[in-house]
């Protein structure tokens, strides 16, 4: 179980303190599919960063009783002068996974061909995101973080990702953040709306969406 208690995040700005999250509570049980709706700037990505551990909350605590992924298909941590394989090795080493078991899987899945052994800086943006998604799948987690919906590659590749994540790993939990309700309606069981720094949780997606519509218009 992952538990967030009273998470508050305040950023200093030139015109004083800006509170993005103001006492957010959230409990993620094994297998939970949670969607989070919010307008741009509502603090969705901040919440994802705090969940992933990239940033510390100003106040509040997180108890991570399950392993939790980095934001899915996030390729920002790639080192451009390293090859796709080097980047895979790095991630595997950080997470204590034997990379030799993952080479074939990632190479196949990312469909990079010979570019798998070329520097990432020579990749197109599509190749980059395919590699990022494949590497995300190389390490197993109890809970995946999905920041906006995975729009990786063409329709066929997109479908492949969906299968990999939502079918093969349907026993896992995930937290999906989006400003579009249909993604959340399709995959989630519960949804929360981030508004004015507060989290409003709903067991019913339609109720969450109705509330989202109400507060954002």
């Amino acid at each position, binding site marked *: 179980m992952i538990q967030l208690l009273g998470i508050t995040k305040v950023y200093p700005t030139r015109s004083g303190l800006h509170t993005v999250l103001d006492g957010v509570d959230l409990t993620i049980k094994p297998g939970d599919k949670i969607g989070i709706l919010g307008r741009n700037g509502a603090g969705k990505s901040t919440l994802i960063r705090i969940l*992933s551990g990239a940033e510390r909350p100003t106040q509040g605590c997180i108890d991570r009783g399950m392993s939790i992924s980095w934001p899915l298909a996030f390729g920002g941590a790639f080192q451009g002068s390293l090859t796709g394989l080097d980047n895979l090795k790095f991630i595997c080493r950080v997470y204590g996974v034997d990379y030799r078991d993952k080479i074939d899987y990632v190479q196949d899945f990312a469909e990079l061909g010979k570019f798998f052994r070329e520097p990432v800086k020579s990749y197109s943006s599509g190749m980059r995101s395919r590699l990022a998604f494949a590497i995300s799948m190389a390490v197993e987690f109890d809970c995946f973080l999905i920041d906006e919906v995975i729009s990786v590659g063409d329709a066929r590749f997109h479908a492949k990702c969906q299968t990999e994540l939502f079918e093969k790993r349907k026993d896992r939990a995930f937290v999906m953040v989006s400003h579009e309700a249909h993604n959340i309606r399709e995959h989630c069981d519960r949804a929360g709306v981030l508004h004015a720094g507060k989290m409003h949780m709903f067991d019913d997606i339609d109720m969450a969406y109705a509330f989202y519509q109400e507060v954002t218009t």
Partner: protein
Amino acid sequence: MSTVSLRHSLAIQSRVIAALLLREVITRYGRHGLGVLWIMLEPMLFTLGVAALWYLANLHTLSDIPIIAFAITGYSSVLMWRNAANRCTKAIEPNLALMYHRNVKVFDILLARIVLEWVGATASLIVLTACFAFIGAMRWPQDIVPVIGGWLLLAWFSLGLGLIVGAISERSETFERIWHVMTYLMFPLSGAVYMVHWLPKAAQDAVLWLPMVHGVEMLRHGYFGEIVPTYENPGYFAIANLLLTLIGLALVRDMEGRVQPE
């Protein structure tokens, strides 16, 4: 809060640092030509250049000190702490995205870079000493204990300095600029280009406040034996290092609370 045992934490941390180290090596040196060997060759070439310059300038006629050993001990020491600190300046910002991997901490990024400098400087010192001693251009170190002790203390010094410089440079551009001036001025003061014994009493008292001077003196005590008296105080150097490390750790801790990946 779920707690993780210290042993488990250490296992994770060493894994992360090893991963960062390998990433850094490949990023910096690539796989072409001499590749990884440059970790050692780079400081070696520097030291060789300086040794050659000093030798050609006939500095060895000014004193009984064997000039090659003098250059190797002096320049290797400077290289270790100066490179460690310089590699730590602005080391976090380009690596901010790594923070998305929860086990990677600011401290790990700095430590990986410092360890790399330790490895390079140490390998360079050993290889140069062995080569020159083998061809008879200098004598083997007379007493290995102060050599190892002095070198370890210098490594510790570079750790404390690296953490401090790494953390502050991330917050203050002014510091980053001043730091470059400081390293430049520190070089002649650090003990690399003089023996404390050569200085007048007042100057001796002043330079012995500088921690790294004690490290170089120890190193040379070991290399030269009793040719020239040395003035090291390992206890003072260790306490100074401890203080620097504690300050460094506190600054890094504070930095970890401030990081904001995109």
